[in-house]
């Protein structure tokens, strides 16, 4: 057993840290305050090779691994603890990776290099207003007419709405829509590359709305409607009616990266905590770390974050075994539980750290002079539901370990 990163991974982490210190750390508060990641920063991240890390070099990617993408998400989460920048990065690593696995050659050649360069955004559009956890119940439809699909419906709580509009090329989504009879449930869903703006032009039939969010404000969230939106068949992802399975695979990769991003933010919060509890003096000059009520709590939080970190990198390691090394000892679905474990643990651990950090800060934490709230609100979003609700993670684990015949969905 080996708990060390490889030399390549360590050198990559060092380069990401250097990049973050130079370009992200000085801007993170402004990113959160103004509610946008500057386009030139997205472009710089593309030039630095932080987007499409696990995508093949022939499509403009870095030819790296899921572990490397997780390292990038963690470090960026540390240097922008609101996690907005990390969310941009993780979306544009996880979903392009799945897109490459199942899309046709022409779509890959056309889309992926622009995403890798930071000229276009590529995210996920599955949630609808009836509830994101019930993917099989989506209502957006895709009907094939000759070689074109006509899409109608609405997607909501979707990241990247503004970024697509502001980036020079535009971008789109890994989108799922119903393509068969409703009674087939999750077996009538097909995945598409839904490119809503390309070569700088917004396509007809896409009407976006941007929401005002309370946290990780640097990356936009919103909804869009599709009205007779046309998608050529060459942009279909994989086989018809297999979209649900591809989506679940994509979520597995994206959830590892979400966990990594929140861990980065949690690490930042713990570093602030150490500094504060060492130097904050009360009651005749005693450091507040000298009180066990503080130091023991700190130790608990530290152990929670370390546990989450180990779960996250174990899931990333397994994903690399399956997808990069093609190790036949594991199948794609073997990732389900390890991924659910890290996605369940990491945002919860990080949220708890922020809550305690803010209590240790006292009233100062309740002002905007203290930036802890930005990390708290940003990472809290992942305890609510983004990239999979926590109860869905519990369900995945329970059904696998206890047995699906006992635990009903």
């Amino acid at each position: 057993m080996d708990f060390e990163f490889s030399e390549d991974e360590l050198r990559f982490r060092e380069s990401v840290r250097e990049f973050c210190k130079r370009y992200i750390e000085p801007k993170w508060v402004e990113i959160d305050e103004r509610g946008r990641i500057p386009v030139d920063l997205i472009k710089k991240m593309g030039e630095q090779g932080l987007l499409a890390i696990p995508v093949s070099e022939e499509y403009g990617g870095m030819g790296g691994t899921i572990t490397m993408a997780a390292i990038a998400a963690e470090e960026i989460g540390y240097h922008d603890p609101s996690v907005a920048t990390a969310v941009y990065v993780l979306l544009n690593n996880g979903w392009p990776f799945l897109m490459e696995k199942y899309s046709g050659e022409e779509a890959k050649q056309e889309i992926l290099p622009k995403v890798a360069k930071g000229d276009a955004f590529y995210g996920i559009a599955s949630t609808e207003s009836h509830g994101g956890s019930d993917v099989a119940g989506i209502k957006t439809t895709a009907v094939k007419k000759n070689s074109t699909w006509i899409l109608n419906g609405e997607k909501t709580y979707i990241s990247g709405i503004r970024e697509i509009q502001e980036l020079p090329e535009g971008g789109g989504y890994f989108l799922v829509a119903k393509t068969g009879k409703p009674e087939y449930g999750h077996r009538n869903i097909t995945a598409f590359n839904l490119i809503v703006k390309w070569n700088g032009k917004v396509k007809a039939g896409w009407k976006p709305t941007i929401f005002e969010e309370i946290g990780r404000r640097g990356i936009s969230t919103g909804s869009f409607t599709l009205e007779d939106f046309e998608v050529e068949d060459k942009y279909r992802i994989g086989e018809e009616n297999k979209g649900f399975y591809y989506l679940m695979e994509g979520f597995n990769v994206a959830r590892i990266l979400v966990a990594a991003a929140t861990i980065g933010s949690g690490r930042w919060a713990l570093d602030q905590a150490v500094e504060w509890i060492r130097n904050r003096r009360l009651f005749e000059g005693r450091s507040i770390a000298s009180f066990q009520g503080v130091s023991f709590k700190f130790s608990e939080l530290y152990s929670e974050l370390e546990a989450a970190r180990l779960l996250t990198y174990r899931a990333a390691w397994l994903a690399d075994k399956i997808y990069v090394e093609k190790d036949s000892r594991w199948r794609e679905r073997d990732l389900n539980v390890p991924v659910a474990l890290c996605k369940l643990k990491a945002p919860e651990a990080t949220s708890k750290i922020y809550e305690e950090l803010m209590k240790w800060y006292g009233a100062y934490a309740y002002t905007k002079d203290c930036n802890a709230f930005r990390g708290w609100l940003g990472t809290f979003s992942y305890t609510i539901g983004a990239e999979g609700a926590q109860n869905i993670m519990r369900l995945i684990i329970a059904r696998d370990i206890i047995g699906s015949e006992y635990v009903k969905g």
Partner: protein
Amino acid sequence: MKILTLIKLTVDVSQLKYEKDGSPLVEIAPNKMGDSDKCAVEEAIRLKERYGASVTVLTVGATRDHERIIRDAYAMGVDEGYIIEVEEYQKLQATTIGDIVKAFVEKTGPYDLILLGAGSLDTHSYTLGSIISSKIGIPIISSVDSLSYNGSIVKAESVMEDGVYVFQAPPPLVITLTTEANEPRIPTLKTILKSKKMEVKKLRLEELGVKPRYVTIEDVRKYFVERKKIIIDAGEDLEKAVETIYSILKMEGLVK
């Protein structure tokens, strides 16, 4: 154009931890390529990109970290890298490094430019550039903050206490650079992975015919400023407190 760049493995002093008595925990501190050496590598790569130069990088040492900094230089765009293997590299005197560079240049050169950091992060002798210049017998421009080259003449600016000095000279030259010279590029994952496959060449002192001279660093301690810990409580008599502060400052010679 052939450029030789010298890099040193130094303790990352920003991550150095200390014992309670102030002695630094050098053994467990992370190592890295010196900051100003990295600027020298960046300058060499920029000249390569503009004038098609070939860039060789050289370091002295015998650890895996030495290989790593050569690979870091490869990831920035350097063409070939050498390690001169010396076990007790930390004790080597600057004049021996000068002998090594001279012998290396005779073996693999000549070079149009020899670039290096003005001073290392850890031992700060600031002498190596001058030693190399005198041993090889080519001019030096030192502590350069800004460098340009028009294809035949090097122009270098150095910001000194009394003003900005501008130097001009044709190659061959030794040039030492400060961290003001440029912002070194950050290797990408692609260049990091590519650098792993590049050969790191190794030579021993005997192959260069250099006999080493050593200097031992006996002790390194953290610099402590003894605080006076005088607390002046203004209480209700602010004027008296100000007078007290003034008299103390006067006693210390800080005010007249």
